[in-house]
């Protein structure tokens, strides 16, 4: 079936709008990083990369997706709702008292695999699911999305070594390389470059893509494994705040909440991008 990239683009921009409204209403969330990952999550959930069934979210043979950058819970919830895992109306409860839509993902929400939010946890767990699938000779695959600043956590590199050792070609790490962490650019804090070389040196098969180009995202994520016997690393170059010009690439928007005026301006720009 030919992929309708325009439809995917439109969906990702509708997710961005709903996500920003949700953050504004909740008075909290992670605006910049949600917007940088939106195209990747839309491709994973709304265009058939992940083999998951919203009607049976715990099916044993489902693909696993770990949102290791758990502060992107707002985006994950919005995407899961758009994918039919739970009603969209529930997004209005985001971070409200007793809502299951906690400020970081938790397994009470259908489609969420693990309680992430402490950084550097997703990749080790993803190595574990990939190992379990290999043991069983099962076809289901594991995907994990990390931030880039998150890679400063050492546990990722323990997992990187293990994934190569166990030849987990059924594991795909996607790095949201938006080049910012909370306070500043990653390279001005603890630099990650040369990032692709690091992963290659750790024994992974690496592809570098534009994380906002649906054609590149789809072509890459549907081509795994890139090499038999090697875990897959996709470095997705993105912009923190992608889609809203006054948020894009501004460090101050890591977890800033848009005012009503800012929200309206942002929504106008995002609506304009839908065709």
């Amino acid at each position, binding site marked *: 079936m030919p992929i309708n990239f325009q439809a995917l683009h439109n969906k990702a921009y509708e997710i961005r709008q709903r996500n920003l409204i949700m953050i504004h209403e909740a008075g909290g969330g992670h605006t910049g990083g949600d917007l940088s990952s939106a195209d990747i999550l839309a491709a994973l959930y709304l265009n058939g990369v992940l083999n998951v069934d919203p009607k049976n979210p715990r099916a*044993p043979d489902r693909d*696993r997706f770990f949102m290791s950058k758990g502060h992107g819970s707002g985006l994950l919830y919005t995407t899961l709702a758009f994918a039919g895992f739970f009603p969209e109306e529930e997004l209005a409860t985001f971070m409200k008292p007793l809502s299951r839509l906690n400020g970081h993902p*938790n*397994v009470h929400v259908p489609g969420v*695999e*693990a*309680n*992430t*939010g*402490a950084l*550097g*946890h997703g*990749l*080790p*767990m*993803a*190595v*574990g*699911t*990939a*190992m*379990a*699938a290999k*043991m*069983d000779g099962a076809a289901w695959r*594991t995907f994990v999305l990390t931030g880039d600043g998150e890679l400063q956590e*050492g*546990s990722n590199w*323990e*997992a990187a*070594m*293990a994934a190569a*050792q*166990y030849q987990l070609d059924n594991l795909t790490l996607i790095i949201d390389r938006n080049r910012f962490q909370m306070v500043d650019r990653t390279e001005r804090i603890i630099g990650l470059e040369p990032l692709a070389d690091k992963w290659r040196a750790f024994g992974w098969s690496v592809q570098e893509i534009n994380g906002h180009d649906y054609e590149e995202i789809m072509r890459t994520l549907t081509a795994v494994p890139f090499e038999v016997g090697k875990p897959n690393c996709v470095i997705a170059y993105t912009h923190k705040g992608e889609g809203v010009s006054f948020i894009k690439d501004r460090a101050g928007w890591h977890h800033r909440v848009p005012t009503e005026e800012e929200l309206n301006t942002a929504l106008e720009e995002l609506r304009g991008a839908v065709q």
Partner: protein
Amino acid sequence: MSELHDCRKAFANTLEDLARRDPRIVALSNDSISSASLSHFAEEFPGRLFNVGIAEQNMVGIASGMANGGKIPFVAAAACFLTGRALEQIKNDVAYTGTNVKLCGVSPGLAYGPLGGTHHSIEDIAWLRAIANMTIIVPADPLETEQAVRAATDFVGPVYLRISRMGVPVVHAADYRFEIGKAVCLREGTDVTLAACGTLVPRALEAAALLEAEGIQARVINMATVKPIDREAIVAAAVETGGIVTAEEHTIYGGFGSAVAEIVATTHPVPMRILGIPGVFAPTGSSEFLFEHFGLTPQGIHDAALELIKSRGL
């Protein structure tokens, strides 16, 4: 002195037996396969034991993922590194996410005596007891170890098993049946209660014998499940014996004694004495030396019980 046993052997034998029947069981090690007595498991089930290297955070994360994928992972590692190094993984990936992972802290407490404070694991119970959705079992002898491993396997959810390497005598009769959350009374008595877990259980029994020679009838309860602790057994001990001495191979801050005290203080306050390691890093010395050093001996427990009884004015 009766024959002494290394509980790691019972742990490993039981795990092998369970693994023969249940293909979901896997074992994870941080390059300490022989320290955890898993060499034979590795030979018999080469595809089901993963030595993930010296990387405890990753090991516990992997275990969580494997449980997500339908396995029952037993993570066996020196208690000091398993709990200290991977504490956040234990909290988030195992307890909070609610994955069916069995954490096996091997050679806990003062087992690594002369190796020093880095290798002593005297905080593990306190750390894990503070985490919701965590079951903590501290078996006292080989039979209880075997039954605890079986119970942990049948139980769906996170479990921490504290597996001693220090030689311990058999304290349970062959027909003993361990049940998670249930204390067992090893000796009846109404003058005072000696409550213990793990390596301190046989010492509490010996202390009771010393007390009996002085005309004091001490109740001895083995509280192998430190969490969820047997509330009824503690309240009954407080009401019926009027005083409780606890003994554990652990710091006195936040461990087994604290768990007992929380119940006693809020239900039926009676005098208590909490024996353990008194908030210091232990010096160098063999395990046996350190037990003596900290008074974790039959005589030490006896003395604490006697002092408690005297303070009560009986």
